[in-house]
């Protein structure tokens, strides 16, 4: 079957987004999109209503008939209907899991990585050495009522006692699933295979136990894929069956519904592999912020469960504190009134900023949500702990231990932003500035955003298993990703080191494709943006002594960079970025940087 049209939806916790991909003139392109509020809430309590509403918008805009009454019409007949329909979902609170491992920083962390990689929210990590008494663990399991539990522990052939103890704790807690009283809680065992039969004896009757390969068969190796796949299967079989309207939605789709973050992660991993680069991807949603990274070919995902732009916006305020939010706002505002406004966004989560002032405030909060999420990610994306490394004499002086963060801002090649506040920012300059301010890239880093937040849909498209269409769908996903999804914003060049000590910390010579040349001097505290298309630009970067732009202290770099919709941004503000505490100085600096970026032109007036 030749795929001619694909309808893909992503049912988020706030909005349901539909995209239509069509095969036109020999290529797959995104042609239309629509969105509508997600309808898990009363009075509808049926996720398919939102899917139909979003699809209706696509119909209205495209003039193509897709719905047949309250159904999506597949396959395409003539000009109506679509060949396949697929979906991702994070509505219903997403997939909420508890994981357990013997040693918190070893099998516990591996289990957490597997669960996060599969797209779930990890509510708690239980471990034999987590400092809690058994009865405290039991109380915790009962309170949290997860959708699923992943139990791991021990290397193959190692001691079984601790992992069986954990299983006994689970059994004693007799956990009830969050949704539906009548089914047994799914538990995945991915630990020491020697303990399998004892685990079966302990948990087999009480829970819906599934056994898969050990997540940490040997200390030096993580084997996450079998657990991740098992989580996806159980997510479909159990959890989705209980959420309002999902049974119907599942009967409509031509491929299993994937948890939204699982789909985004799959796509980011694919991009990093294809281009052989280090990538950080971020998806800032209503309730949570997900960060994905690939450094040294290792994929990591973290979810900051209560850092989001609507449902948990007040938690961003609480965790970041009001002064940290206000440091990004280039005008004075009544602090008490501001907290009420943010509170109102939390209780009416689907509203959008109509006035410029509201937009600036929302983007200030986004910076803090992104910053805090990235702090958490850096702490989690680390080398495997507990691995003994053979050291040579030369290594002995470098006391680098296992458990070091993989995130190296100087090594980072690309930041991809997605989620409403980044993808739907009215100006791309705003998205670029939010990414720079919150991630503080160092050296040379490309910036991009998911144009209309379609990474989830493309991720699930690229993972269709049906052999008949898998290849085509994957090709279509990559084609649309390149052509319509990724908006190249440009490149950020940020020298680090002792910027304040030299008059001109960075000298730049650029040569554009048309032969035009440009020399730029970057001073401390300055932000400079130059317009440049997404095409090759030859750049010679000469940092002053004590300043590094990627090759080391004072070392010159000759390289090729790319512009984009925003262009090239030279960030001479230094790392870490320090913002003046005095309100007047802060406002004046923010206005200066904002003007340089053409971020909020109306505010400067």
């Amino acid at each position, binding site marked *: 079957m030749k795929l001619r049209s694909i309808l893909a939806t992503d049912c988020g*916790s706030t909005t349901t987004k539909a995209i239509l991909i069509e095969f036109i003139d020999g290529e797959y392109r995104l042609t239309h999109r629509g969105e509508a*509020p997600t*309808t*898990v*809430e*009363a*009075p*509808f*309590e049926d996720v398919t209503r939102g899917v139909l*509403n979003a699809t209706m918008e696509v119909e*209205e805009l495209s003039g193509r008939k897709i719905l047949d009454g309250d159904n999506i019409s597949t396959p395409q007949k003539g000009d109506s209907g679509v060949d396949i329909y697929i979906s991702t979902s994070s*509505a*219903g*609170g997403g997939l909420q899991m508890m994981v357990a491992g013997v040693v918190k920083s070893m099998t516990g962390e591996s289990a957490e990585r597997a669960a996060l990689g599969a797209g779930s929210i990890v509510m708690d990590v239980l471990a034999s050495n987590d400092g809690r008494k*058994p*009865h405290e663990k*039991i109380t915790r399991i009962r309170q949290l009522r997860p959708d699923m539990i992943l139990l791991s522990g021990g290397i193959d052939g190692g001691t*079984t*006692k601790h992992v*069986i*103890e954990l299983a*006994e704790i689970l*059994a*004693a807690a007799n956990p*009830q699933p969050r949704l539906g*009283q009548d089914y047994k809680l799914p538990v995945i065992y991915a630990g020491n295979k020697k303990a399998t039969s*004892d685990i079966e004896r*302990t948990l087999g009757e009480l829970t819906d136990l599934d056994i898969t390969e050990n997540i940490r068969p040997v200390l030096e190796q993580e084997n996450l894929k079998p657990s991740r796949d098992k989580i996806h299967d159980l997510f479909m079989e159990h959890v989705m069956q209980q959420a*309002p309207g999902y049974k119907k939605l599942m009967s409509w789709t031509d491929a299993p519904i994937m948890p939204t973050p699982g789909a985004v992660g799959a796509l980011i991993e694919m991009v990093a592999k294809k281009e052989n680069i280090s990538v950080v991807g971020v998806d800032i949603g209503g*309730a949570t912020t997900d960060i994905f990274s690939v450094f040294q070919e290792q994929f990591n995902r973290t979810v900051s469960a209560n850092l989001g732009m609507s*449902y*948990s916006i*007040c*938690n961003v*305020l*609480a965790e970041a504190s009001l002064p940290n939010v206000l440091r990004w706002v280039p005008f004075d505002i009544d602090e*008490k*009134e501001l*907290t*009420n*406004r*943010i*509170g*109102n*966004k*939390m*209780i*009416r*989560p*689907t*509203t*959008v*900023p*109509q*006035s*410029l002032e*509201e*937009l600036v405030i929302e983007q200030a909060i986004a910076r803090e949500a992104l910053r805090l999420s990235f702090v958490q990610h850096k702490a989690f994306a680390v080398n495997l702990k507990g691995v003994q490394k053979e050291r040579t004499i030369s290594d002995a002086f470098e006391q680098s231990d296992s458990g070091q963060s993989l995130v190296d801002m100087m090594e980072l090649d690309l930041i991809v932003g997605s989620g409403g506040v980044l993808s739907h920012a*009215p*100006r791309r300059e705003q998205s670029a500035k939010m990414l720079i301010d919150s991630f503080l890239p160092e050296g040379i880093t490309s910036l991009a955003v998911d144009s209309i937040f379609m990474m989830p849909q493309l991720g699930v498209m690229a993972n269709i298993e049906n052999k008949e269409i898998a290849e085509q769908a994957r090709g279509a996903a990559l084609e649309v990703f390149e052509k319509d999804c990724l908006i190249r914003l440009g490149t950020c060049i940020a020298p680090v080191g002792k910027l304040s000590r030299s008059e001109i910390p960075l000298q730049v010579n650029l040569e554009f494709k048309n032969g035009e040349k440009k020399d730029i001097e970057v001073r401390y505290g300055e932000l400079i943006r130059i317009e440049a298309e997404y095409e090759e630009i030859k750049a010679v970067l000469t940092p002053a002594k004590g300043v590094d732009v990627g090759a080391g202290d004072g070392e010159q770099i000759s390289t090729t960079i790319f512009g984009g919709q925003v262009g090239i941004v030279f960030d001479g503000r230094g790392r870490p970025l320090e913002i003046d505490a005095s309100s007047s100085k802060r406002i004046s600096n923010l206005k200066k940087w904002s003007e340089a970026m053409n971020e909020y032109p109306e505010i400067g007036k």
Partner: protein
Amino acid sequence: MAHSYTPGLKVLKNTKILKERRLPLKGAVSTSLGNSVKPDDIIAKTDLPGNVQMVNVANQLNVDASDVKEVMVVEIGSEVVKNELIAETKGLFGFFKSSVNSPVSGTIESISDLTGQVVIREAPLPVEVDAYIEGVIDEVIEKEGVVIKSQGAFIQGIFGIGGESRGEIKILSPDRDAEISADMISADHEGLIIVGGSFISLNAYKKALDCKVAGVVVGGFNYYDLDEVLGYTLGVAITGSEDLITSLIVTEGYGKIQMGQQTFDLLKNNSGRLASINGATQIRAGVIRPEIIIPIKLNKDDEANLDKDKTVGMTEGSTVRVIRSPNFGKIGTVKELPAELRQMESETMVRIAIIEIGGNKVEIPRSNLEVVETD
């Protein structure tokens, strides 16, 4: 006609109310189909499994896990009291015995020969569910609970704190614009549900707590004052389990916002009636909004006059409320729902509705409007 789906809050004068009352775990239902119930009647009971304590006997007695059964002096199913001997080694010639006592009173649930752990479960915790509203049992969910049918006024608030409560409705402020101040609340209001207009200050709410008022229904409250009431900063709007004598239901939002006309009038018309309220709010998937239920005696002839569920979303002519600044809190009528995207002051491109507020037509993003469902 163009239409759009916007979940709105219900303000219904006379509607059929179905209330599900469920146990957290299966148990026994103590009423039957067709029975009339009052709010305080217990309709179902169960015992939650008691807390569990685990004792690693093998470790404490320094024996192999496989030998634990031999040192146990109690069996699975035995009841033990706190500090009672549960395991003991034989010692040497009857001397140098080591022993383990139970840390709690309870029942021996399991003895593991794999790890040497002994599980002791404490006594079950009884849980009862009451009817919460006055009505008739419409459905019995076997071993889990019931659905109670009632008829009356039903109002949803936007946010609340405190759980279920009930009391007579007492209108305190003269109109929907006025605030409830501390001096308006007295000991006479104990057990009542007091209704105000636009706002209640932290001081006035504290006075309500002191006077043991059953509930407060008001247009607005300050978000930052919640810190002091709750003892923590509310990061996500999930409430209902707070231990507060006075449940608080906010109908419009944070800040000073006049209560919706329909809401205020409806509460005023029911002044003196018994109402059941619940401040529990969950703004996440499976949204729960706080509610005010005012049952009216069910009369068979009245059933035909019940409001039908008129949830149709936003259409031209719908009454809507603006739920974000500018124009926050204002009520208007939808004049037009253009299909194309329009640019706002923030430069955001959105689908809008053109609404009339006080004779002026304004463009508002559709997502910033809420349908006011009235009858």
